């Protein structure tokens, strides 16, 4: 057992921190928060030059074949600066789904394009009335000769407005379990019949859109892997994405905690730094405690995706998703409280953390959803 970071891993984190400090300072994020696109091509290109898009992609598709934990370390740093833009949607949501479900040809086509930064992409998952239920997939894929006709609405799709292609889970089977009825399509964002409408988001650093399909005609070749067999690879990819959100949360919580405790050292009231008052000091200590324990959860969940048994990977992802995103939300809220009025202004960067925290909590299954999922696994194990 060795739950420490290797030299290589420490380097990933250090390099990322150095790069992002320079290329993605707070002023840039604040600007992108209000920008309709949400990221500059320049930063995207530089990130691609860092090989970040290629990290998790196998070497034979032009990537570096690294582990989830390596990606987590990178995402932690991205969360630390509340990186705006389509990295998460492209590399994690679309990339991991294609990696889990695609045929060799599809991986060669799509993953290579992701790996070298040429393509942006996303996954269109949630639907109206589905809430947090990741299995509530109602978009229909009806056979039409060799083709399929897609109809339905996908919501809260991250960075669809920038995507070149979109992965879409669709109900192609009419009856039976998700495991036998869901197919994953990959389609161009400019496909006929596809409408992408940006939605006003609370967290301006992660733009979301509605993706509406009206009689979108796709060939059989657009199906990732096998017809009707998209459910399991989708779940595996989503687990990695959930862990990805945890990594962002840990990085964000870490930075929010640092901002707050740095402020508490210099802000003077009653002739002394407010950090000397227990009310403030203990808030900071609690922020630290939640952040550090989140990091332990993150490491476990990251490791389990690559090396744990299936059950452990699932329960670890759900445990971490609930714990880390709850913690980030608490930490960011406490951050505002420690900063007082200053933390309540848009000018200060703390609001970025609160909004990202709340968005990460809401995305890919709320803590309530994940706790119920954990309970299902626990109850069946004990009984």
């Amino acid at each position, binding site marked *: 057992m060795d739950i420490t970071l290797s030299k290589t891993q420490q380097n990933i984190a250090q390099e990322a921190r150095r790069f992002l400090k320079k290329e993605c300072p707070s002023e840039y994020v604040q600007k992108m928060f209000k920008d309709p696109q949400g990221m500059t091509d320049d930063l995207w290109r530089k990130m691609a030059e860092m090989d970040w898009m290629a990290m998790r992609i196998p070497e034979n598709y032009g990537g570096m074949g690294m582990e989830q934990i390596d990606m987590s370390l990178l995402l932690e740093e991205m969360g630390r600066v509340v990186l705006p833009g389509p990295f998460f949607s492209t590399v994690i949501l679309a990339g991991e789904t294609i990696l889990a479900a695609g045929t060799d040809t599809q991986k060669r086509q799509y993953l290579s394009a992701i790996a070298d930064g040429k393509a942006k992409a996303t996954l269109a998952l949630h639907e109206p009335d*589905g809430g*947090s239920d990741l299995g509530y997939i109602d978009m229909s894929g009806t056979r039409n000769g060799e083709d399929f006709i897609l109809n339905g609405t996908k919501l*809260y799709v991250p960075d669809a407005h920038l995507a070149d292609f979109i992965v879409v889970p669709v109900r192609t089977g009419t009856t039976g379990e998700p495991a036998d009825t869901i197919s994953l399509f990959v389609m161009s964002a400019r496909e006929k019949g596809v409408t992408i409408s940006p939605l*006003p*988001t*609370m967290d301006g650093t992660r733009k*979301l859109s509605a993706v509406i399909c009206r009689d979108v005609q796709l060939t059989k070749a657009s199906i990732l892997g096998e017809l009707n067999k998209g459910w399991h690879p989708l779940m595996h990819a989503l687990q990695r994405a959930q862990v990805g959100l945890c990594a962002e949360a840990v990085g964000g919580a870490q930075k929010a905690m640092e901002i707050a405790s740095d402020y508490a050292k210099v802000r003077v009231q009653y002739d002394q730094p407010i950090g000397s008052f227990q009310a403030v000091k203990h808030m900071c200590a609690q922020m630290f405690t939640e952040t550090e324990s989140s990091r332990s959860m993150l490491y476990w969940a990251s490791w389990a995706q690559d090396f744990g048994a299936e059950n452990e990977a699932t329960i670890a992802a759900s445990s971490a998703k609930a714990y880390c995103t709850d913690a980030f939300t608490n930490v960011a809220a406490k951050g505002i*409280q420690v900063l007082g009025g200053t933390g309540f202004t848009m000018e200060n960067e703390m609001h970025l953390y609160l909004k990202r925290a709340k968005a990460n909590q*809401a995305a890919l299954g709320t*803590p309530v959803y994940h706790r119920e999922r954990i309970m299902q696994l626990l109850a069946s194990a004990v009984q």
Partner: protein
Amino acid sequence: MDFRLTPAEETFREEFRKWLNQTLPGDWDPFNQPTFKEPEKIRDTYRAFQKKLSEAGYAGIHYDKAYGGQGRSLMEGVIVSQEMGRRCISVVMPGVITHGMALPLIYFCGTEDQKKKFIPKILDGSHLWCQGFSEPDAGSDVANISTMAVRDGDNYIVNGQKVWTSMAHFADYCLLVVRTDPDSRKHKGLSYLLVDMSLPGIDPRPMTQITGEAEFNEVFFDNVRVPVSSLIGEEGQGWKMAITTLMFERAMGDVVISAAYETNVEKLIRMAATTKNSGQPVIEDPVYRQQIAQSYIEIMALKYHGLRNFSSHIKTGIPGPEGSIGKLLWSEPNQRITETAMDMQGPAGQIAGGPWSVQNGSWQYAFLRSKGNTIEAGTSEIQRNIIGERVLGLPKDASRDKSAS
């Protein structure tokens, strides 16, 4: 002990409620109204509404007719406040300082001239007031207030900077806390001036808050010449005057807020009935049912706390020990309620408006705005210090004690 209104009061409530229903548009949603993102609009809406209120004989219910009030009972004042809280929270909001601080302070401490000059204009909606209290170095620590007013003939020359001044960018007057005695420390030596915001040298700069709107301002005072007649009460008595005068209005404030939040809980329930998770209305989920019920319970605690406090104030003239806890009873529950509302929306919680948002994104706004609740008007930490020290008699911590005395 009787929680009921008298039949006459009930009739009055019914009348006023009817009037409100007729006066407000049919689709009026108290929690989804113009915000400070549209300062002119919210000000105009406030003024128009206050004017109607005044014309209908509902402005300044428990204030003297001589100044444009209605000369009715305190209880009737509460009834009007409750109903307004229930129906028109965001329209009442711009008037919180005006009616909750400026009005009572002028009424109880002002000269006859000041009363005649200001009160009618407040009641008919002509004047909106802001309050200049916090400063960059005097957030929780009032000892550091350093905006100076130096006497120069018939004027005070005011220099300094205020911060967190709500609505300063469109208020007509400011209830300004200044230090008139430069050698004073702490609350001693503080005075209140009634300052015309159009005077030269006053520069309000709106600050955008995390909700994206600009409710608050930094306000710079650069050699502003304020007539001595603007002083209210005596020099150096500002703090004491405020404390004794505003207690009642603070109790009233809890009552208004609880009425507004009661409406908010209804809205939450309606949201739960129409928002779905896995195809089922969220209201059927026992987990969220618990949270909604808890929200209701906490608002009831605020409501009956407020009414009890108010009641003992009416009866005895002094607020009970329960008075000091009102701030904690609304700020923290409101944060929990908005969190609940956000969580119930699942992934839609990320959407702050537009066709796919829940209840037009009003909970996203409320969630963010609520984070200010435990900071504004005295942080929760300051409230707990006050309760611990002034109510329970626990010792001040040695360091603060030393620095402050």
